[in-house]
């Protein structure tokens, strides 16, 4: 395979994650160096940002095709896609920590160097169980209202009230 920017053989295969779609680049050593330096963020980037850590980790692990598939996965409770998360650096709901566990675990290890909480615990831990279902129901109700399906919306509202008690 030839370098996309000159005629030399491409020895570097880069998956770019900054755009809306993962993009594959095939470059020779010289062009790759120039490209990577341009995208390095320069000396201003002292601490690795969340996006950087995530991009680096994903680059190592997956091919573009797998990534595109992963990007489209969305949390069944809050609806956030993996692409939205890695683009904004903020998760959509508490349930995401379980739904995207496979992707988040190495990220969390990278940031914190540890994966297990050893600090304080809430005294009301038992009460947090039905939370994720409430998130899903509230979103469904919101959508029903937008579609003017008030019958469904009122059914969902009753379900929400039932769970809230």
């Amino acid at each position, binding site marked *: 395979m030839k370098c996309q920017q000159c005629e030399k053989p491409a020895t570097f295969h880069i998956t770019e994650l900054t755009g809306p779609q993962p993009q594959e680049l095939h470059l020779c050593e010289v062009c790759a160096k120039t490209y990577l330096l341009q995208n390095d963020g320069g000396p201003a980037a002292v*601490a690795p940002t969340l996006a950087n850590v995530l991009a680096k980790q994903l680059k190592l692990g997956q091919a573009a095709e797998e990534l595109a598939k992963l990007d489209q996965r969305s949390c069944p409770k809050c609806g956030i896609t993996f692409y939205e998360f890695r683009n904004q650096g903020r998760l959509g709901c*508490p349930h995401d920590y379980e739904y995207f566990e496979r992707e988040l675990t190495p990220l969390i290890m990278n*940031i914190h160097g*540890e994966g*297990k*909480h050893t600090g304080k615990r809430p*005294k009301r831990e038992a009460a*947090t169980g*039905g939370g994720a279902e409430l998130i899903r129901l509230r*979103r469904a109700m919101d959508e029903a209202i937008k579609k003017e399906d008030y019958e469904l919306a009122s059914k969902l509202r009753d379900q929400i009230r039932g769970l809230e008690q």
Partner: protein
Amino acid sequence: MSGPKLDELANRCGEWLRGQGPQSEIVISSRIRLARNLSSFPFIRRCSETDRVAVERTFREAIASVPQWKGLIYVNVASELSPIDRQFLVERQLISRELSEASGARSVFIDSAEIFSLMINEEDHLRMQVMHSGLDLDAAWEQINQMDDWLDQRVGYAFHPRLGYLTACPTNVGTGMRVSVMLHLPALVITQQIEKVFRSLPKMGLAVRGLYGEGSQAMGDFYQISNQVTLGRSEVELVKQVAEVIPVIIDYEQQSRAFLVKESRKDLHDRVSRAYGILCTAQTISSEETLHLLSSVRMGIYLGLIKDLEIPTINKLFIHTQPAHLQKLRGMNLDTAERNVERAHYLQDHLRRRGNGDVGQN
């Protein structure tokens, strides 16, 4: 309800610039914040406005039901605050820029001594912070831990048995805690030793930020040092991690000050006196230059080069010459040029009165 109460705050200094407490010549303040979320709502960025209103109400009612919190000032940031009032609270470090600039339902509870505040619908549903003057982390932790317990009895926090408190950003997961100490380090800046200190801190799991937090410039030689990680260590361990390094940095700063006095006393005295002179006589001055000069004067007082001023006076000027404070104290909106003139007048009034006009004499 916010107007008159905020005006009252404007005339005071606030806890973090009180200028007292342990090591207060170099340590401005000790701050701890906890991030918490409700388990039954999406994180803020995924919240509909209905969700935001419900989260705001849930915390507002929970906070209002804590008997010890009867006298808190409640400020509805979304609907009651003018841009100047929002900026005013940011300058006092009672709310974050993020809370100030967001849209949708959001609010803050502030205690009248300004030691703690509870922000609702910031990056997380709740961000509470405790701020003590000087180096006082253990007491700050004790206080915020108690505050967290009171709310824990009233709302359902998002918590994972392995990952701890769940937060919108994975960089805060676990304890959700950020411990930060604000330091005034002018001598390390002058002697160019500051870079060395900062290069060594990340290796110890610590981050350095400017005066107003993440991404802000280091103004007036103020720096905030805080823990980098939030998971895998207990809250007490995190407090200890930050607390251990502070005396070392204080020691470096003191050594640098002693070095400057010994090696270049004349230059140092000149620098400090000129700064004092400009502050007393300028006709128009930016907030940036003011911070910079006040920083020199503050160090001059500590080293005994200026004898007719005290550190709390300088601390008060630091906060009162900030753009929103100046406008609130003056009682009107001012553009940048007008503020620079007003600031110069304010400084003249307060420094000349103190020093009886003997500019720089000691």
